[in-house]
């Protein structure tokens, strides 16, 4: 805290010991009595200022020591005034109740000089300020120092992801474990083939801007390869136009990969409607009429997940579901034979497609999770030993 400006004259009465102590006490009593009656409260002292850090130079923090009269309840408020010259015209900034001894003035313009003074006002009137503080200047800063931890997290994450993407593009495919959900999908398609019935694939109800829909459509390509190989009919009802066109490309690509381009049925991918309940009515209609033996739900689902899973369960079909919408997972977990939980949807799409950017993001995320676990373990140990610097460092303002 920098303190500069005109020093306030502080009276220092000499006090010889013993005899005069009683006199001083009487005088002091008299003072209190008279002060209580007439004199306005003494002014506060030691006004210091500090440019509020991490901002665009728009605020200054001012602090002062309370006036001696404050403890005697004779001060109701401190009035803060500002001027652009030491003696210049004073403009009112704000008044603060007696118990507070600091004020953040947020109306300053950056890089301009100001002078401040604070006066104590009470029931007996207002005392002119003794000390004037200035020149005060608020500066704009280039970096918010409290956000270091966020910068480190983002920089680390971007570095990991980019490194893994370049690894994957250079042919050295990073290892991604085969999650059991993928076996469940293959088993479901296999069962549908044995029973000679079709497969229903629902890529979620959102448009292409939701990354869950993108992941669902990537998985659709691999499922289409399986249905092509097993010559099992596949039905893909879709809600929005763009996912509809991409779903068609995915199913065609699947049949192409399996070497059965001729078997591709153009109306296996059907555009239904973006309206949630109209879409659900149509899909449950397909479940009940065409009775596919396997239902695969991969993508963004909301309140309608309950209706789809329940009707599907009633038809006895084997159901595999995946969504990153946490509030819908409970319904899928209890109603479906297998459910990929949250991020497993992205892991499945990365594993099946081997796409460098998907695998890179996944592996980068893994490393940052390990980093987070280490920080939590170290942090908890430090906190248990009442050492708080790590916790403080991570607090962002």
């Amino acid at each position, binding site marked *: 805290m920098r303190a500069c400006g005109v020093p306030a004259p502080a009276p220092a009465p000499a006090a010889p010991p013993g005899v005069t102590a009683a006199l001083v006490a009487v005088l002091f009593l008299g003072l209190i009595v008279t002060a209580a009656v007439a004199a306005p409260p003494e002014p506060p002292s030691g006004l210091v200022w500090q440019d509020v850090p991490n901002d665009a130079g728009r*605020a200054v923090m001012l602090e002062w020591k309370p006036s001696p009269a404050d403890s005697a309840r004779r001060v109701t408020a401190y009035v803060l005034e500002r001027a652009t010259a030491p003696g210049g015209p004073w403009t009112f900034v704000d008044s603060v109740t007696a118990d507070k001894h600091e004020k953040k003035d*947020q109306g300053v313009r950056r890089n301009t000089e100001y002078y401040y003074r604070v006066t104590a006002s009470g029931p007996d009137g207002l005392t002119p300020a003794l000390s004037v503080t200035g020149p005060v200047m608020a500066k704009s800063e280039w970096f918010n120092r409290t956000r270091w931890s966020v910068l480190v997290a983002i920089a680390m994450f971007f570095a990991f992801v980019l490194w893994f993407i370049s690894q994957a593009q250079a042919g050295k495919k990073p290892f991604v474990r085969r999650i059991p959900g993928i076996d469940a999908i293959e088993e479901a398609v296999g069962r549908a083939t044995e029973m000679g019935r079709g497969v229903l694939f629902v890529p979620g109800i959102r448009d292409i801007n939701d990354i869950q829909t993108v992941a669902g459509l990537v998985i659709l390509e691999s499922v289409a390869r399986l249905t092509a190989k097993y010559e099992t009919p596949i039905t893909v009802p879709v809600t929005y136009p763009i996912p509809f066109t991409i779903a068609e490309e995915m199913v065609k690509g699947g049949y192409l990969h399996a070497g059965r381009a001729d078997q591709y049925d153009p109306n296996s991918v059907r555009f239904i409607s973006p309206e949630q309940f109209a879409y659900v009515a149509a899909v449950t209609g397909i479940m009940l009429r065409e009775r596919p033996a396997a239902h695969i739900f991969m993508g963004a689902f909301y309140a309608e997940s309950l209706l789809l899973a329940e009707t599907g369960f009633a038809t006895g079909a084997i159901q595999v579901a995946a969504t990153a919408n*946490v*509030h819908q997972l409970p319904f899928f977990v209890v109603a479906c034979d297998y459910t990929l939980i949250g991020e497993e949807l992205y892991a499945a799409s990365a594993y099946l497609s081997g796409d460098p950017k998907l695998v890179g993001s996944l592996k980068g995320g893994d490393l940052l999770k390990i980093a987070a676990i280490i920080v939590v373990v170290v942090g908890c140990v430090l906190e248990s030993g009442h050492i708080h610097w790590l916790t403080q460092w991570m607090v*962002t*303002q």
Partner: protein
Amino acid sequence: MSLATFFEKLDRRWIFLAMGLLVLFPLLFPLALPLFVSSPVASFVKAVDSIPDGSKVLMSCDYDPSGIPEMVPMTRTALRHLLDKKCKVIITVLWNGGPGLVDKVVRKVVDEEYPDLKYGVDYVNLGYKAGDEAVMVLMGQGIVNAFPKDYRGSDTRSMPIMRGVRDYSSFPMLVNISSGYPGTKEWVQQVQARFHLPMVAGVTAVSAPEFYPYLQSGQLLGLLGGMAGAAEYEKARGEKGSATRGMDAQSLAHFFVAFCILLGNVVQWTKRRRAGA
């Protein structure tokens, strides 16, 4: 036909009927079961009480008519809580479907219970703005820059209540009532830490569990979860609103769903054991 197959063949429309009756009955003949205020609701009340009386408070109501039964009681009780503290309330609505509903609720509370308050002096409804996170950060550099006009189409810069309101630093707290995107999560991510604005939130029950981590970390100072949270808030404020009246029906409905889960599984076990035997 054994009991198990009877239940299995049961047409689900009977279950619909049972649920309908169980919800309708307590609305006609209230059971008035006692409520207990849980800790997230108690911290919500404590946080709003800590707002200095007479200060200007930002209240963002981000929901639409699909959230009426949970969000409207919270909005009413929170608004009364702030107006009793002589706070000046500035309302924003970031959901497309919300402005008409929020204005009706606010107008009804103020006209019937605080007739002496003047619009534009003691409270203002800034209405809707598109842009979700973008408009939240835009308000960080100037509330009137983001909302040049209010809900009623009049200019906000000339309103007495908006004098002295620059950006989030003008508010001691944000009271956010929201039922999805954009809502509490976006306010916490874009505004709470970045603009140092303490925050309390009232949310729908389906999204409440997701916000407990924010409550534990202190990003939220208080949380109302669904109709139960609204009813407990009404009880803490000594009111008896639509949320409290609905809680009896919640009790019966919840026990009925629990009964369905158990019955469904008992039917399943008996069928499997008979098939196995």
